[in-house]
């Protein structure tokens, strides 16, 4: 510590140590809050149409267009270390091959940012202003975890590797989420309870059958699960 340069080096060296320790504590602090998300998802309307994967394709595939209702309470996922929560809905149906795994395809997703990460959202200036204003003066905003979507159109139409999708049985919609923290590990929808982190309550729709091709028919009313 005898000269300016040595002092600067020593102070910076210990500063990095302090940064690392504080970051570790922040990551660990995630465990001090309970996570008890719940959601209900139900199918509103399904139709299967034939289409091409891209404009010049000669192959025709079947695509399912799904409309759904979604009601979530993910407010317990928002703490000071939450940067954003990625919510997505997938459709799952049994594989008709002998493979052990079901087919699963994402039909809709969204990103919910914390107020501390609003500036990272890729949206226009007007929407950004509104978003920032919605959480003015708040460092966290758990109310953003409450989604209530009615008759929501899927973002992505889905098909299967075989190209055949009509009249598939036992299709269920599932809600998933990722919590992306500022410091620490990305966490996925837990499949088992882990301390205070509970599995998603609900979040699975009743099984439904995809309709036959080109017949635009309304699914019989399905109760929410």
């Amino acid at each position, binding site marked *: *510590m*005898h*000269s*300016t*340069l040595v*002092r*600067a080096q*020593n*102070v*910076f060296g*210990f*500063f990095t140590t*302090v*940064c690392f*320790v*504080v970051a570790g*504590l*922040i990551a660990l*602090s995630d465990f001090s809050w309970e996570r008890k998300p719940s959601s209900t998802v139900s199918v509103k309307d399904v139709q299967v149409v034939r289409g091409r994967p891209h404009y010049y394709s000669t192959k025709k595939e079947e695509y399912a267009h799904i409309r759904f209702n979604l009601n979530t309470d993910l407010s317990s996922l928002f*703490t*000071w*270390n939450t940067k954003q929560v990625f919510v997505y809905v997938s459709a799952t149906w049994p594989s008709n091959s002998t493979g052990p795994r079901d087919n699963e395809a994402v039909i809709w997703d969204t990103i919910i940012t914390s107020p*501390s990460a609003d500036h990272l959202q890729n949206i226009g200036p007007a929407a950004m202003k509104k978003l920032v204003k919605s959480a003015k003066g708040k*460092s*966290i905003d758990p109310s953003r975890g409450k989604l209530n979507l009615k008759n929501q159109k899927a973002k992505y139409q889905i098909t299967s590797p075989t190209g055949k999708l009509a009249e598939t049985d036992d299709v269920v919609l599932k809600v998933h989420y990722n919590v992306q923290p*500022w410091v620490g590990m990305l966490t996925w929808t837990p499949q088992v309870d882990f301390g205070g982190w509970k599995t998603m309550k609900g979040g699975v729709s009743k099984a439904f059958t995809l309709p036959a091709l080109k017949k635009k028919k309304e699914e019989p009313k399905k109760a929410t699960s």
Partner: protein
Amino acid sequence: MADQLIEKVRDAAEGQIDFEGQRFAERLATALLSIVGFISFAVGFFLQDIKLALFIGLGGAALTFLVVVPPWPVYNQKPVHWLQVPGSQSAGQGIIVDGKVIS
């Protein structure tokens, strides 16, 4: 004249401090940074505000740099008093280089 000026600038840039000052600076740096880290975590945790925690941490580190790095007079209060070389009367050190005594 120019040599003296350069010497002065070099001394200022090097910023030597005495031994007691070195001990004090070391302890001060460790204590300040630890306290700043603790405060930034505690404030962020209880106010649930990670940006605040970040800025407290960075601000505190900048303050620590400002307090510890420059050779403040407080680090030079006990300069080492070297003993006189035995046999030499003058203030000069009496070092002999090439047969000549330089003062």
